């Protein structure tokens, strides 16, 4: 590594790649410069101002880390007094701009847990923000100990829930533009038009007209991109709070793209799905099926016990009875008709391990190569 490739951040030397912004360089080195409007994989817009940092070479002058290319002469201060003062002002402006009632006021006298407890106690009030506990603005407000002191009047901003998947609450939009970029630059659906700002100059997704607007395909990229509670999953709004869930990482079970998902689980139920942002093939993106099509998992129609045909219907059976019957009948037919009159149709839906066992079962136990799956269909 040459000396060209390093710069100083908060007094230490760090490496960066040519083309990195200061924000990239910090991230790669595990340093946390807060950001709000910056969306990975999209062109930086620099509209929020949260990521400001100071360069020692230019005292008092602040630059936006997400927009500033890293250069080796730079000595960066990410938390100097003037940086913190500016960040606080920015955060305060955002808090005052909308209905950010996440009880951050007065938070300065409490620790995080009692703060959380106090808000949990009042949960259920239908005006507590649904993104509570999963909001980047709230996190920043807590980190920098900023309180808002102004709420917009009741009804000043519209709420919209006309489509089946997405709930929009304009009172909480901070106009960071990430949803617009998510739609236009990442998913390239062009369903949210940045110029389509309403009289309150809030970003207005065209999905106000879900049936008329053919461009919205409900991929939910905008929800995942929204740093606050302005765009949320309708299905889990208010019914599921982030602190009640655990997440498990897995692979989507629909198409062959194999998107990486987080399943959010509450009380042994999948209640929400989000995309894993760090790895391919999807880097956080999902489609409507992957994000919103999880209800089958806990559907009451799921089979729960073996069934044996009786007359025109079925009766429930124990595993022992059912497996004994299957083994006996297959054994008999293998004996009387021959192994090649038997076959297994394995599945493009089940795991590799299960497919391997299915072919092993056909070949080693039934002694036939009559094994196939529905790839052809």
């Amino acid at each position, binding site marked *: 590594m040459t000396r060209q490739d390093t710069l100083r951040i908060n007094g230490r030397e760090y490496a960066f790649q040519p083309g990195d912004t200061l924000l990239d360089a910090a991230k790669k080195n595990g340093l946390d410069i807060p950001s709000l409007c910056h969306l990975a994989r999209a062109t930086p817009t620099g509209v929020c101002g949260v990521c400001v940092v100071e360069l020692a070479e230019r005292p008092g002058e602040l630059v936006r880390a997400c927009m500033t290319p890293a250069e080796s002469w730079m000595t960066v201060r990410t938390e100097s007094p003037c940086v913190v003062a500016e960040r606080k002002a920015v955060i305060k402006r955002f808090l005052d701009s909308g209905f950010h009632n996440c009880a951050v006021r007065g938070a300065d006298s409490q620790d995080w847990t009692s703060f959380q407890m106090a808000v949990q106690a009042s949960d259920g009030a239908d005006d507590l923000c649904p993104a509570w506990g999963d909001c980047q603005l709230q996190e920043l407000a807590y980190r920098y100990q900023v309180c808002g002191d102004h709420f917009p009047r009741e009804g000043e901003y519209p709420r919209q829930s006309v489509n089946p998947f997405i709930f929009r609450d304009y009172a909480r939009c901070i106009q960071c533009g990430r949803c617009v970029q998510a739609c236009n630059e990442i998913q390239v659906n062009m369903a949210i038009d940045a110029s389509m700002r309403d009289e309150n100059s809030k970003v207005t997704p065209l999905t106000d007209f879900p049936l008329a607007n053919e461009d919205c395909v409900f991929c939910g990229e905008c929800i995942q991109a929204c740093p606050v509670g302005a765009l949320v999953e309708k299905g889990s709004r208010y019914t599921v709070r982030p602190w009640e869930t655990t997440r498990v990482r897995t692979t989507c079970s629909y198409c062959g793209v*194999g998107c990486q998902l987080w399943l959010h689980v509450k009380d042994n139920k999948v209640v929400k799905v989000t995309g894993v942002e760090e790895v391919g093939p999807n880097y956080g993106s999902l*489609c409507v099926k992957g994000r919103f099509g999880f209800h089958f998992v806990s559907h009451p129609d*799921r089979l729960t016990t*073996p069934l044996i045909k009786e007359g025109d219907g079925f009766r429930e059976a124990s595993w022992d009875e059912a497996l004994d019957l299957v083994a006996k009948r297959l054994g008999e037919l293998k004996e009387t008709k021959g192994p090649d009159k038997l076959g297994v*149709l394995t599945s493009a839906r089940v795991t590799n*391990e299960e497919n391997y066992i*299915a072919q092993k079962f056909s070949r080693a136990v039934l002694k036939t190569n009559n094994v196939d799956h529905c790839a052809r269909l």
Partner: protein
Amino acid sequence: MTNPIKDVEKADVLLITGSNTTENHPVLSTYAKRGIAKGAKLIVVDPRKIPITKHATLWLRQTLGTDVAWINGMMRVIIEEGLYDESYVTSRTVGLEDLKKAVEPFTPEKVEEISGIPADQLVEAARLYASAKAASILYAMGITQHTCGTDNVKSLANLAMLCGNVGVEGGGVNPLRGQNNVQGACDMGGLPNVYSGYQAVNNADAKKRMEAAWGVTGLSDKPGLTVTQMLPAAHEGEFSALYIIGENPMVSDPDLRHAEKCLKALDFLVVQDIFLTETAKLADVVLPSLCFAEKDGTFSNTERKVQRVRKAVDGPGEARTDWDILCGVASRMGYPMAYENARQIFAEIGSVTPTYCGINYERIDSDGLFWPCTGTDHPGTPCLHMDKFSCGLGVFSAIGFKPPAEMPDDDYPLYLTTGRVLYQYHTGTMTMKSEGLNAQSPECFVEISQEDADRLGVAQGDLVSVASRRGKITVPAVVGDMTEPGTVFIPFHWAKQAVNLLTNSALDPIARIPELKVCAVRLEKAA
């Protein structure tokens, strides 16, 4: 896919054919759309005005089942105008002379006659494809589900090799797998002719290795039957028992009435699934299994990337993993099979499957690996055929045009093609459990052109009966410009109005894939 998904964004030219990418592989389509936003050119060849045509530089609309003709036609232009990659062809392929002869009859005018693609558009598409430094071909069932499906695939491979697009970043011939683990089911030997890792059952060495690994003797070296052969054999009384795992042929198979007869003719049918599907209802024994969210394992995606599946919730009632159930049956049949967990099975897979042997759960914990991965220090293989084809030189195949098995006539004057919609998945057993998805796409429909609608006196939303030689369904009409006059489209998700009552079960002679994408139908306004 020969190339990884991220390569799609790096292509200079994309050729998408027989793939409704934005609806069926939505996240993959974002790579294509981002590439196009940055300047890549897109050629779509599809009979329907699918959403990705909005992003296309050129959209060629071919008559159903005429793919060999337009692909040969493009190659003829490329050869005639000397636009092919000569050094690539010389150093990495054989058979150009045969190819030249085979494509000779496919002049742009001749192709127009067969496929309906205007001659000048074909020439333009050929020049555009050949002009690319790296061009990627994406295709799906619209290419394969034909009686000439194998020919279609080989033709696309010809085209890609001719222009030096196989084994380059941003290029390739990339089939998009419709179901999450089609790739894995094939890799694992869920095919009648191969063990895991595509080791042929009639290869004596492979057989010996598997016998030793599995502790058995007398493995059959006779390739087995495909599903599309087993069912008719049952109908003929030549096939007795079928064990179906997680598939629903009673909605997905062609010519369902016939499929039902076949399944009913079996002496014994076991169905293992998460729901009581249309197929399960016909079973003698139904075994409840766990779904992806309830078990550990791996899936291999369409780019050959092996990724983890992890248990997030407990399953309902007594449901068990598919492997555990199979082990239970095997043990009862006198072949004890027992594993502690999926990890142990995966280790066994690696030990008998050269292409997977370098992969283990530790290595794919935070990110998957692309097979072939032949050692624990092997980085995996995102892009195939980089320096040479895995089988040596690439061979051009000389392919002629054959029309579909069933063509429109006086009794059944319209072409029918089938496919999927964004909001539903395969036979709907999973997606139809989500209210939101059903709200977006509640029911089956038939897409019909304004011209055909006018002729039949059908208005938007009218119920229409659609009949083929094999069956009849009644569905509402969606009138518009998605299909061209003479062709209608019906998605296959819905069991109640199953379009596969109408489709043709004629098979590709090699791949044994049914011709789900073309048959002849008659439409009438329903009384």
